[in-house]
């Protein structure tokens, strides 16, 4: 079953008076529990594509379906609600909330987005901290952790709401190579354990090899350059 299905999507921007095409007639589909990478140089449209799949932005034309929902028509409120229910995000700079402990950062979406009861929240947070190997850091604050540990927290936070799809924009860009590999391995393990689809963007050739399916973007054009079947 396809979790993401894009048919002839385009994204154009106005830059001054000129119209710039960031994504040109993209057709692709991503199955559930895939481990996918969008690769390409800076400015190739990776982030734009992730933003559209993540319902942070709308295609200018074409059809984009995520988790069975045509996301083109979502307004601001519905898009936020949809993201909260189905999508998790991992950011290049981790984007953890500095005043909250690690456990509280992971718990945050369950309070602010999904409003879970306290006991259920606690169980889920503990489960995710164990899964990503940061249980011993629960009461620390983000500034007391290394980059790799912060990204583990971010992965746990993205997974905590049982998101079907995790979008990671350059998740390893601020990490050294060893840590970057460990983070990619962890993401893959989470995909295996929870059946969650991961889509990440990168321009690091060594990291992109870890992906099972690769879509390459160049000047707004997208083509599949690796894989094509469901892995796991």
């Amino acid at each position, binding site marked *: 079953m396809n979790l993401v299905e894009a048919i002839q999507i385009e994204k154009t921007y106005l830059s001054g008076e000129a119209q710039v095409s960031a994504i040109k007639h993209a057709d692709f589909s991503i199955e559930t529990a895939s481990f996918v990478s969008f690769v390409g140089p800076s400015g190739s449209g990776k982030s734009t594509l992730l*933003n559209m799949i*993540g319902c*942070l*932005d709308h295609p200018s034309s074409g059809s984009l379906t995520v988790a069975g929902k045509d996301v083109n028509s979502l307004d*601001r*409120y519905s898009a*936020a*609600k*949809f*993201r*909260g*229910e189905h*999508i*998790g*995000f991992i*950011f290049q*700079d981790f*984007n953890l*909330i*500095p*005043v*909250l402990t690690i456990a509280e950062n992971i718990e*945050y*979406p369950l*309070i*602010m*987005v999904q409003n879970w009861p306290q006991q259920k929240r606690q169980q889920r947070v503990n489960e995710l901290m164990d899964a990503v190997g940061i249980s011993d850091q629960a009461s620390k604050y983000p500034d007391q952790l290394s980059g790799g540990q912060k990204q583990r927290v971010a992965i746990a*936070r993205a997974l905590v*709401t049982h998101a079907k799809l995790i979008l990671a924009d350059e998740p390893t860009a601020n990490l050294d190579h060893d840590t970057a590999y460990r983070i990619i391995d962890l993401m893959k393990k989470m995909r295996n354990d929870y059946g969650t689809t991961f889509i990440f963007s990168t321009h690091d050739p060594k990291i992109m090899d870890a992906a099972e399916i690769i879509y390459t973007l160049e000047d707004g054009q997208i083509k599949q350059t690796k894989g094509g079947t469901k892995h796991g």
Partner: protein
Amino acid sequence: MGRIVRIAARNLLRYRRRTALTTLLITIGVVAMLLFLSASGSFKAMMVGQITDSMLGHLQVHRKGYVSSIESLPLTMNMKPQMISKVEASLKSINEIEAWSPRIKLGAMFSNFAQTTSIRLNGIDPEKEMATCPELMKRIIQGEMNKLPEPGKILIPELIAKGLKVSPGDSIVLVATNKDGSVNGINFIVQGVLEGISGPGGRDGYMHINDARQLLRIDDNEVSEIVVRLKKPGTLKRVMSKIKTSLGEITSQKGKPVFEIHSWEKLSPFSNIAKMIDLMTLFIKIMLVSIVLISVMNVMIMAVYERIREIGTIAAMGTLPSNILKLFVIEGFLLGLLGAIMGTLISIISILVLQQAEITFAFGRQTGLVLYPLISLSDIAFASIVVVVVSVLASLQPAWKASRMNPIDALRHV
């Protein structure tokens, strides 16, 4: 909601110095307002109480035209027994009225057999006057304390007692001209000396109403004014309206009203000072609102600006715009609440200290007045509610801006 409040509180603590300074500013505003309210309110209440409870009552009924010529104390404008009956019938029908007292006001020559001066006097029924102006007796500073004048005795103002060197127990002569122009003189004993207070009538003497009638050779029970005391001063406007309605219907043969009714505010110039105090209180309130509005808005605008990426992150995670708005509004609310609580506590402590200090001050010719600041629960509640509401309002605009932020732009913000 409790968790959002906790997160909001943590957010405030991340900029401890800024939060502390803003809270301090709000606290200073609350303290300034509550101290001013307590000091000015107590001064006003004391002065108004003194005027109404020992001199003017809450309102007075006169024959039409009397007040405009009150300087000459015209005996020709006294109210006749028939008119008094109508006034008393009207007053009896109003539940809010506690008591009333008829008075004859007169001017006389006061002589200690060596020197003579003029004096303004009120002829009173002691029992009724005591019920209407209960604080009058407290103004007796020499002589028989807590006792209004018996027949044959008078209470004289402090200035005359000092000026003519007259003491309680001394014999004096009062000479008055009646409305027909004939002059009469009677000996009286000084029963006591009255402390003067600010305002008209504040330096009047008092005598028994029957003595006043005898001195003026008034045969019937006519009076110059009827002084009215209310059960609750706050009902003044309502009672005035009721009396005006009932007495307004009584007209002369020419169809003109027979009576006039004046509140103490119209009879005493202190009401203008009271209005000035109210105006200053209003300015202080406006200043408090401005302080809270500007300081909280400034903090919240900075908070939003500094947390744009964080707002983008939580928006991307799916936090609804209403929850983002709530988060920032609660931060503003907590700032206001903290300032209000601290301000109230410091104000109460300061007021208790001022009460113990018994600071004295002078007003007009009155000296040694003790400032005893008091603050009501309603004033504290008003200040606290204003601070909290204004804090919430001040944080609405930044919170709205945060909730409307485009997540992509916010995440790109450096």
